[in-house]
């Protein structure tokens, strides 16, 4: 089943399961969704449960927050994460704060689904990966499924969770395929998973990058290089134990991320490893991330700016070649 289908079926299943679940977003009804995740749902559930909104990200996300305060379980689609900037005050200054700031008197069971990712020649304003901003914010939960199975498991968990959860999708993953468990399937929020065990080096990634990492790891097997792939799945909470435990075994780590290097998700991963596995590291933790430019439209420039399998492979090999120089004599 595709990642898209898994999301669609999950939304449908939750709409059937719980009358308090409703969908809101631009073009999710009549237009069936910019990326067709909600295809057919308006026809099946009607405009009360599947609500097209005017173009007003701040307004409809804030409206979903208020509906959640009264016990509904809105699942909002923001067409792409780039447009979430218009709603970020409602997400960060309101949804994330209310429960704590109001002394635990209210819950905000809100889910925000939104795809990120570049590589589609959508240019600078439509190609960003800004999930790190949300991952920085206590009060939010931030999930990033890489597989159809996790798309189902994490979205289901998010909808049943009583806190605001941002579910990061990815334009490049919608058509990817994978096994999806039938029936009720949830994945524990806050847990990373090891996609492939390995002994020589750990690659940490999430979303589209996790798929690339797995692919690279498989190919490197043929060269006798054993790479372990950790898929974060959850950016907040972050499963530091799984990351550090892996690196303590492999003693080397590389991060693959689609966002810009400086202050990106990989910075936290590298810092966590450098602290949590300090005594075990045989080489510096390198990050493979996007070049720090507003992503250009022209294909050659876009390709040059985005991280890919080749860059990851190169850095993995460099890291394995790097040896630990005798620390003292180095000074």
């Amino acid at each position: 089943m595709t990642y898209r289908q898994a999301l669609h079926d999950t939304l449908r299943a939750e709409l059937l399961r719980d009358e308090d679940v409703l969908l809101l977003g631009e073009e999710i009804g009549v237009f069936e969704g910019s990326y067709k995740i909600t295809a057919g749902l308006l026809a099946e559930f009607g405009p009360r449960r599947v609500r097209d909104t005017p173009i007003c990200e701040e307004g409809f996300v804030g409206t979903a927050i208020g509906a959640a305060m009264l016990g509904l379980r809105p699942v909002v689609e923001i067409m792409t994460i780039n447009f979430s900037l218009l709603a970020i005050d409602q997400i960060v200054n309101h949804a994330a704060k209310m429960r704590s700031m109001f002394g635990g008197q209210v819950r905000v069971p809100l889910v925000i689904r939104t795809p990120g990712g570049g590589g589609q020649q959508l240019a600078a304003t439509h190609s960003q990966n800004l999930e790190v901003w949300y991952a920085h914010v206590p009060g939010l939960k931030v999930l990033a499924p890489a597989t159809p199975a996790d798309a189902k498991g994490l979205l289901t968990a998010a909808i049943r969770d009583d806190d605001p959860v941002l579910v990061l999708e990815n334009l490049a993953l919608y058509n990817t395929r994978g096994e999806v468990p039938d029936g009720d399937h949830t994945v524990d929020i806050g847990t990373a998973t090891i996609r492939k065990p390995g002994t020589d080096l750990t690659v940490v990634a999430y979303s589209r990058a996790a798929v690339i990492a797995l692919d690279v790891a498989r190919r490197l097997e043929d060269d006798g290089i054993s790479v372990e792939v950790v898929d974060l799945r959850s950016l907040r909470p972050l499963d530091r134990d799984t990351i550090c435990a892996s690196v303590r075994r492999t003693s080397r780590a590389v991060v693959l991320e689609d966002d810009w290097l400086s202050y990106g998700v990989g910075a936290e991963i590298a810092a966590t490893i450098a602290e949590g596995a300090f005594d075990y590291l045989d080489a510096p933790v390198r990050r493979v991330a996007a070049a720090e430019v507003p992503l250009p439209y022209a294909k050659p420039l876009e390709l040059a700016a985005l991280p890919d399998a080749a860059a990851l492979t190169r850095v993995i090999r460099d890291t394995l070649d790097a040896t630990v120089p005798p620390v003292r004599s180095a000074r």
Partner: protein
Amino acid sequence: MAEPSPTSAAGPVTLDEHGPGDDAEVLRGYYRQMRLIRVFEQRAAEMYTRAKIGGYCHLNLGEEATVVGLMAALRPTDYLFTTYRDHGYALARGAEPARVMAELFGRASGLSGGRGGSMHLFDAQHRLLGGYGIVGGQIPPATGAALAVAYRHEPGPDCDAVMCLLGDAATNIGAFHESLNLAAVWHLPIVYVIVNNQLGMGTPVEAAAGEPELFRRGCSYRIPGQRVDGNDVLAVRKAAHAALEQARGEHQPVLLETVSYRLRGHSVVDPARYRSDADNQRLRELDPLPAFRTRLIDTGALDADAAVRIHAEVDQVIAEAVDTADRAPAPAVEALFDYVYATPVANTDHRLPGDPVIDPAVPR
């Protein structure tokens, strides 16, 4: 002042001048509430200067008639969203003065557990769904509360309604536009009340709003608007009641503007130098409390002795509230991470500043 709006559709007003049950006792009750808010705010200002209260502290001084009139029109089952200028609303809605003051003092017994402070009063029991410190920030959630009501209830006399308060200056922010538009296209049972106190901090309405007759700003959504004298508690109650009836009866959003005056600075620390002595003189004359007292005495609903008794009783209540709040304990530091999340999940961060990212105690 209350020139009728061309778009006004406040509908048949079912209340007579005073409204049903407006015997002297009800009126005295309004006066007492106004007085209660007045004294509470004066003590709050005093406590702020004595550093019992921190952060920002915005008072309802001058808005007592508006506060009491609006709250009198609201049913206990209706939902209320306010701005950070929220003390009076919490009191009039029924919250214990001691718990409101305790919130200002940052105590565990405070209305929001001491975590929100003056700007963020929340009282689930009385359906006060929060004071909000981001200007305009409460408008989309209030609209969403109305969506939840409409999702569950047909229009009709028994339908709940939502009241969303905002300041005059908040009508210039995008959230106002987006929210009213949503309420209009979705037919939501909500009354937006612009509490026009003439100023946003130091900025007069005319300097900030292209249409300074703010009740007209519903025109961009075909939302009927009406303006009422915010210094007249009964006029406010009447207009608010009519608006709420329309909201619950037809799921028709309504825009109501109350016009009153901010007697002091924007917050306790603002000396309001931008106001002339003449302004201040004029303001004292517009004070709604003496005006309402005189009116009640003239109509025989109140006499001098009764007024004195009310004042004494109110002073007493507030004095006790201050004492109770002052004796209340602050939240325990161990409770720091409470309420960050409603649903516990794995690996939530419970680190204090300086703690390592991985608990060294965890066996490697």
